[in-house]
């Protein structure tokens, strides 16, 4: 550093010291009194010299020394009082020594002295004003929360305000003369030379700086630099005003990340999301809150035109790719052009929506139908998510879940269930078709045969009449039996509502067993029938329950086909806790672990080639009677199916 720089630095320090320490340090208490006494003593001494000594010179000019000596501790008023006092003493001394002599020289000295005192006072007053301005500035410097640093052109700190102390955690004394950018490890977004060039060209620069705090944390400050030049235009310092924006930056970063996350979710969400601008609606609601429209929903109710106007002001401002796909469009701009006014709410729904918004609702959900791509009807669940009250309504999110497929599947499911139920019944018949065909065929054969026999007995003469009559009676019996079977099959195949009649359980089981007696006998198994439900009655459809029993029996028989002896089939009934328990067991392979959970569902079969409807039919039938079906494997193997039915009270 050369001598010129040193000189400039020294001057700069003085200026800075004046700038920072220009506060008027007024003494208080005893010091003030001592100083006053001393001032009075000096002034009186000068007066004594001027009055009592024969020195013929302007002694009174020495009052200037008094003024200069104490002016930095005085207010303006005190300064002028002192000035008046000094002038008075000067005049008093002149009148005492020279009143009667008419000495011109003395008079001139008097005039010089008074002019000197007054001139000095004026100068001191200006100095005092300047100092007071400095004081105000210094006060401002310490009051502001910004960090204000004045540094010389070599980077050394000349001024370090309280804000800087607070921000960097470093005291003024420790920082004076220090190159603070080195100490704080200042990091700039651009090379420092570029900043210096900007300062030189524009006398100012602003930007963000990364700096270290006292405990090592990284601070981000927004800094504004101003070049300070002397009257000759020579730069002597840089005033740096810095604001801590660390928290703000963190918030901004968090906001940015949040926005990015939202955008990412918005773009990738599998749910269609639109953003609506409800600002105009918000204005209407605001009017309503101000009293013009006390209840928007009610107000809009009779006014279709106003509602239409509100609808016109609601527009789509953004749509995510799923929404575009939903409406069969690939381009967002095209979507916003085509569906700007997309709001599939009828007037009533729109009123409800506005009412929800007015009453502070945050979500309005509605299921609606609209036209999708190529006019395909869409069923949508629309949920509008309103921001909290008072926040702008320019980005109201609207999620749309396409329920079309769901609804279609639900309809299909309902239809399939109905078809399945029907199929179950038909399949039940199919599964026992051999038995039913046999049962129907037998009385038919008997009818034909008896009828023919009756004819022939009659043809052989009156003596055979009784045999003809007996044969005809058998015809009637067989026809009645066939009719019972046909009615039962027809009811089973129909989808009409089930009967609700008292059913003696053991009687019903016996009937069912009679129907599959043939299958039981042909399967060559050892059947065990243990019916102990006694007089237990269940209300319901006898035929349906009978078919359930038949299904279980046939399942059991089929499960034991090809299995080694002994092949045992057990069917029992008993009553427990007002429940009839009908148990069907076999010694077949039983339920495998992987199918035991599914065995009750349709189309789950343990039997090769089986449709798996048997148990499903049972479950439907039993559940229709308020009961349930339990399945398990026996302790010694084989499957066990238990039907639980509530008995009649």
């Amino acid at each position, binding site marked *: 550093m050369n001598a010129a720089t040193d000189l400039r630095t020294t001057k700069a320090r003085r200026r800075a010291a004046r700038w920072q320490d220009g506060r008027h340090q007024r003494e208080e208490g005893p010091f003030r009194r001592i100083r006053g006494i001393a001032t009075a003593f000096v002034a009186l001494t000068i007066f004594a010299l001027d009055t009592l000594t024969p020195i013929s010179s302007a002694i009174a000019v020495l009052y200037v020394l008094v003024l200069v000596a104490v002016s930095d501790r005085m207010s303006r008023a005190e300064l002028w009082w002192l000035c008046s006092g000094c002038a008075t003493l000067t005049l008093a001394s002149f009148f005492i020594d020279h009143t009667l002599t008419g000495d011109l020289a003395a008079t001139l000295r008097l005039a010089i002295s008074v002019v000197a005192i007054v001139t000095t006072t004026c100068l001191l007053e200006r100095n005092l004003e300047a100092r007071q301005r400095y004081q105000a500035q210094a006060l401002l410097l310490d009051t502001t929360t910004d960090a204000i640093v004045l540094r010389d052109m070599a980077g050394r700190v000349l001024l370090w305000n309280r804000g800087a102390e607070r921000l960097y955690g470093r005291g003024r004394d420790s920082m004076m003369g220090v190159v603070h950018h080195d100490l704080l490890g200042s990091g700039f977004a651009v090379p420092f030379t570029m900043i210096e060039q900007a300062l030189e060209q524009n006398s100012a620069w602003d930007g963000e700086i990364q700096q270290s705090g006292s405990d090592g944390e990284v601070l981000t400050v927004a800094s504004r630099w101003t070049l300070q030049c002397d009257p000759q235009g020579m730069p002597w310092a840089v005033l740096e005003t810095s604001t801590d924006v660390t928290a703000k930056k963190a918030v901004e970063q968090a906001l940015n990340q949040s926005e990015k996350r939202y955008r990412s979710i918005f773009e990738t969400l599998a749910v269609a999301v639109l953003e609506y601008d409800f600002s105009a609606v918000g204005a209407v609601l605001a009017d309503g809150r101000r009293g013009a429209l006390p209840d928007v929903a009610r107000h809009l109710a009779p006014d279709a035109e106003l509602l239409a106007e509100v609808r016109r002001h609601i527009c789509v401002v953004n749509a995510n790719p799923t929404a575009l796909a939903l409406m069969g469009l690939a381009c967002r701009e095209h979507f916003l052009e085509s569906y700007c006014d997309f709001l599939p709410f009828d007037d009533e729904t729109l009123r409800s929506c506005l009412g929800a918004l007015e009453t502070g609702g945050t979500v309005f959900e509605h299921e609606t139908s609209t036209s999708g791509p190529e006019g395909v009807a869409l069923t949508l669940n629309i949920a509008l998510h309103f921001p909290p009250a008072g926040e702008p309504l320019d980005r109201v999110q609207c999620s749309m879940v396409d329920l079309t497929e769901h609804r279609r599947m639900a309809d299909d499911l309902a239809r399939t269930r109905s078809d399945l139920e029907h199929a179950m019944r038909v399949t039940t018949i199919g599964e026992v078709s051999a038995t039913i065909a046999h049962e129907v065929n037998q*009385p038919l*054969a008997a009818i034909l045969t008896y009828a023919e026999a009756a004819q022939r*007995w009659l043809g*052989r003469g009156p003596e055979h009449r009784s*045999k003809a009559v007996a*044969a005809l009676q058998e015809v009637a019996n067989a026809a009645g039996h066939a009719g019972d079977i046909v009615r039962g099959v027809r009811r089973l195949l129909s989808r009409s509502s089930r009967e609700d009649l008292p059913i003696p359980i053991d009687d019903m089981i016996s009937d069912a067993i009679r129907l599959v007696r043939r299958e039981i006998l042909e399967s060559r198994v050892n059947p065990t029938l243990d019916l102990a439900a006694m007089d237990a009655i269940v209300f319901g459809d006898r035929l349906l329950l009978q078919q359930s029993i038949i299904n279980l029996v046939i399942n059991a028989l089929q499960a034991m086909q090809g299995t080694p002896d002994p092949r045992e089939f057990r069917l029992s009934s008993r009553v427990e806790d007002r429940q009839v328990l009908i148990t069907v067991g076999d010694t077949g392979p039983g339920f495998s672990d992987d199918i035991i959970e599914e065995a009750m569902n349709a189309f789950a079969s343990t039997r090769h080639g089986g449709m798996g409807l048997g148990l499903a039919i049972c479950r439907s039938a039993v559940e229709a009677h308020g009961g349930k079906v339990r399945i398990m494997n026996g302790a010694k193997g084989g499957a066990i199916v238990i039907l639980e039915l509530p008995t009649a009270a």
Partner: protein
Amino acid sequence: MSKDTAPIVVERVPKRIAIVDDDRSVRSAMNSLVQSLGYAGQAFSGGRALLTVGVQNFDLILSDLQMPQMSGLELLAEVRDVAPQLPFLMMTADPEVHVRRRALALGVQAFLEKPCNIETLVHLIEEAIGLPEEWI
């Protein structure tokens, strides 16, 4: 008429038909029918019962195919062991091919669909054993 000459007694003896069916109404009806035709019918609930009585006592066997314990096919096989020429009519609805083939191999005269056409039945019975009675 000489005393030494014993008079020749000519007796009309009805031909005997065994009816085998597990269904009571069917076998009863068939029995009534064959009796109305003039034959002597006897109904059996199963093949085992017929075999116990003996098939030689009958001129024709009319049997159901599907029966528990012993099917019509099994009964036919048993009958063929003791009476290879005994007429045998099988009552069934649409028998499976292998059953039909096996029954034909064992010498079944015909299949009758249930419920059977009475005229066909009468025709088949008469074709198999002739008129209901024979002179002895």
